[in-house]
């Protein structure tokens, strides 16, 4: 049994909130760099160049890459041999409060979905915990903007819809989203599970670097095909037209019921943020 102080969680979450909002992950940077060079359509190339400049400027001036510094989604992989000394969830919320305050990040959370009063400190965090073997605690902060979140969709398809049904659903989602989610986009796709589980799969898929294919060759192939189909739509950066509509996508799957084929698409943007620390 290993003991981790709640204060250490707070400190790590605060730091990760600022880091994630200021520096994009290496895989997203690499994809932007590749596409700004490869894009054939002039306005699209120019636009990708500006998005690149923005990313660099944020890095140099320690400013948030995007003003929507998001809802603080915190994913915890908690070793089952870890004992947390103190209140686990409260420690994470406190980390968000400190990170968003000290980092001059935007406070975008309302405490109630209908009465809509801003909590003024971006809490609460959206916490997802998974128990894993071992005595480590891995924290990932993935701030999520809602311009793209609002374009996400869930479909309870029929088994007969098959892989074509899944492809059509994903492409339709991108088409409906159009210019709203600040393309070039990044997609997390969940297939299988249940009504609630499939959404978690889609969200979790966004944590996987986009240069890392699904370990199952069947799904790695499906990822490739979907990416090619999306980038043939012509939406382009910011929806101005062009080749680069999607920087990358990840599929996660789970066993499902004989009668169902759930599919969920979590839409994210070129400001797909995640920062990880291990305690």
């Amino acid at each position, binding site marked *: 049994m290993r003991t981790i102080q709640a204060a250490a969680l707070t400190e790590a979450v605060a730091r990760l909130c600022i880091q994630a909002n200021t520096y994009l992950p290496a895989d997203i940077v690499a994809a932007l760099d590749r596409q700004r060079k490869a894009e054939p359509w002039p306005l699209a190339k120019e636009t990708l160049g500006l998005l690149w400049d923005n990313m660099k400027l944020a890095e140099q001036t320690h400013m948030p*890459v995007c003003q929507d510094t998001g809802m603080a989604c915190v994913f915890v992989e908690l070793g089952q041999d870890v004992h947390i000394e103190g209140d686990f969830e409260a420690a994470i919320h406190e980390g968000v409060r400190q990170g968003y305050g000290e980092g001059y990040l935007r406070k975008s959370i309302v405490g109630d979905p209908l009465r809509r009063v801003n909590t003024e400190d971006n809490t609460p965090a959206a916490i997802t915990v998974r128990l894993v073997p071992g005595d480590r605690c891995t924290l990932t902060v993935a701030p999520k903007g809602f311009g793209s979140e609002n374009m996400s969709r869930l479909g309870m398809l029929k088994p007969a819809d098959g892989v074509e049904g899944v492809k059509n659903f994903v492409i339709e989602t991108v088409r409906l989203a159009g210019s709203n989610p600040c393309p070039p986009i990044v997609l997390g796709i969940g297939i299988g599970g249940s009504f609630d589980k499939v959404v978690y799969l889609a969200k979790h898929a966004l944590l996987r670097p986009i240069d890392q294919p699904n370990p199952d060759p069947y799904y790695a192939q499906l990822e490739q095909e979907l990416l090619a189909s999306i980038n043939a739509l012509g939406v382009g950066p910011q929806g101005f037209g062009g080749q680069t509509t999607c920087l990358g996508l990840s599929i996660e799957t789970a066993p499902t019921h004989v009668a169902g084929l759930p599919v969920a698409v979590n839409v994210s943007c070129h400001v797909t943020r995640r920062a990880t620390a291990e305690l």
Partner: protein
Amino acid sequence: MQYKLTTPVTREDLAPLRAGDTVLLSGVVYTARDAAHKRLMERLDAGEPLPFPLEGSAIYYVGPTPEKPGQVIGSAGPTTSGRMDAYSPRLLDLGQSIMIGKGKRNQAVKDAVVRNGAVYLAALGGAGALMAGSVKKLEIICWEDLGCEAVRRLEVKDFPLTVILDAHGGDLYESGPAAYLASLESKEG
């Protein structure tokens, strides 16, 4: 084409602009998002004056991050404009000339743009740090209780924007992708 414009603008200033053109905008720009638009409507309904002059004005849909000491503004990219669709036609009919945001607008907004000789310009979505560089001065002019949604008076210099909806019915979100796809076909053919 690239145009340089300074606010307040006239119908004549905007007439040459076509979807896909770029604009470097200077002068005063007011910020307002959902909550501020709702309050603008309440003032109009009550017959009260608005907090800023609408004639020839530019409204930027943005909720910036807090400015650090010594900064004029924090990150300041656009929010999704569609949420303002319910309010924009009324403001355009009353004199607003430029809307700045990102993403699709509905038919009522497109009609109001044409009817009033206005324009809808896109700022770069997700390029908050870059957009902030064009803001030279910031002053909160009302509804401070709305936090990042409070109405701010910005003075901007060469704010880089792209024309989405023009006064002649053009829409870059339709014509841009169509032109790109047509270029592929002509290559193949």
